[in-house]
């Protein structure tokens, strides 16, 4: 690039050197169109095709006005449209995944320290358990192991969640105590309706190591 075109993006307010209009319109390729802009009136040999060197008009007609350019523009636009449409096609509008919010029965139906797999298909264990402060609470644990994302099993005999992949173990509270899992299982948001029904909301999660288990939305106090 020559020094004739200073910063392309900036607004050049003091612009004395070239004719202002021409330089602004053809900022991308200044060297070529600038000289012939003056040329046509000077040359203009009689009987020849009009201004072969190219005015701005002939340039624009050449880019947008000829049949070949219209054909290429149409072709390119349809190809881009097909590509974008294909990408959009691959994003499904309807999912067959379980909803992120579901009801998990009445609070009275839960016995203390009893784990069942009723909602394991939804990725959750809903558990009634006395926490370390002695409060009787119900919480919804995620069934995703915090090591590499497998699904642990509840071992009733040993009173623990045991991950079959790498042997991580979790207490009924969800706190890890053996194996490679680096942190406790996560809780999902849980609340009680006016009728005493439990609603689990998997779109919000609470991590113990971040102190989020103190959040009142992470458990139901009985």
């Amino acid at each position: 690039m020559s020094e004739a075109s200073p910063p392309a993006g900036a607004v050049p307010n003091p612009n004395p050197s070239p004719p202002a209009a021409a330089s602004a319109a053809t900022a991308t390729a200044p060297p070529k169109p600038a000289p012939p802009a003056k040329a046509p009136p000077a040359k203009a040999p009689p009987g020849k095709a009009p201004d072969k060197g190219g005015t701005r008009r002939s340039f624009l007609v050449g880019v947008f006005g000829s049949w070949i350019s219209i054909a290429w523009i149409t072709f390119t636009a349809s190809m881009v449209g097909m590509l974008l449409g294909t990408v959009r096609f691959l994003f499904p509008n309807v999912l067959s995944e379980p909803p992120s919010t579901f009801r998990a029965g009445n609070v009275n139906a839960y016995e203390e320290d009893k784990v069942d797999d009723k909602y394991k298909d939804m990725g959750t264990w809903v558990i009634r358990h006395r926490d370390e402060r002695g409060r009787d609470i119900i919480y919804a644990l995620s069934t995703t192991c915090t090591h590499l994302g497998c699904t642990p099993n509840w071992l009733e005999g040993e009173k623990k969640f045991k991950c079959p992949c790498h042997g991580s173990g979790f207490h009924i509270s969800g706190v890890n105590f053996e194996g490679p899992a680096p942190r406790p299982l996560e809780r999902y948001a849980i609340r009680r309706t006016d009728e005493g029904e439990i609603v689990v909301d998997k779109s919000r999660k609470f991590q113990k190591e971040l102190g989020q288990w103190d959040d009142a939305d992470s458990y139901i106090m009985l």
Partner: protein
Amino acid sequence: MSIGDYIRNSQVWKSIFRHPAPRDRRNRVVVMLTNLFLHLHPVSVRKSGIALSYTWCMGGITFFLFLVETVTGVLLMFYYRPTLEHAYNDILSLRDVVTLGILRELHRWGAHAMVITIWLHMYRVFLTGSYKPPREFNWGVGVILLVLTLLLSFTGYLLPWDQLAIWAITVGSNMARATPFLGYEGPGARFLAIGGVELIHSGSDARFLLLGGRFVGETTLLRFYVLHCVALPLAVALLIAVHFWRVRKDGGISGAL
């Protein structure tokens, strides 16, 4: 050295484009001729070979439709599951809830169009006498391609798994019962017996092999799906390659020899 020159002088660029930028007349020609996409055709073709009134371009359109069917078919495979539980509902969801699910209609109408154009191609080849020596072999290849196209239509017909599909395939595959020797109702089948035990019966004949059972069921759906999406397209692709290659080797497209 500008960055453009740097790129054009790099080994990667030169390995892809064998010739310099098309700035002079010679390079403009060789750049075109050495590029598959810019010059799929031979360097020289007979004048009649590009006359639309002579070729109707029906072979080319058929090939184009095959490409359309391949692309749309692959895209449809992302949504379609060939099981009793899902097949019909996946077709409905393509119609009702998938954005641009009209791809399925493109696939369907493209298939109809392909059968039509392949017949017209065959008709044109007959009219221009392009089946005559030395092109008899390629006529044979073309006939096999026609049969494979019809089989693609037939196997694709079952995949929506609606009543029309199930009964159409039931009726259509009943023809296989009458296969000579290999269909249990066909001529000669009862002679294939050892010591009074018939080898060809309703559980061992050609129709049974085709359907994977005695009636159109889930095994049939899976069989037709695999045939439709993998086996038949591979066979067609191979034969198309032979077909096109022979067109060039036998003296170019559709002219008198």
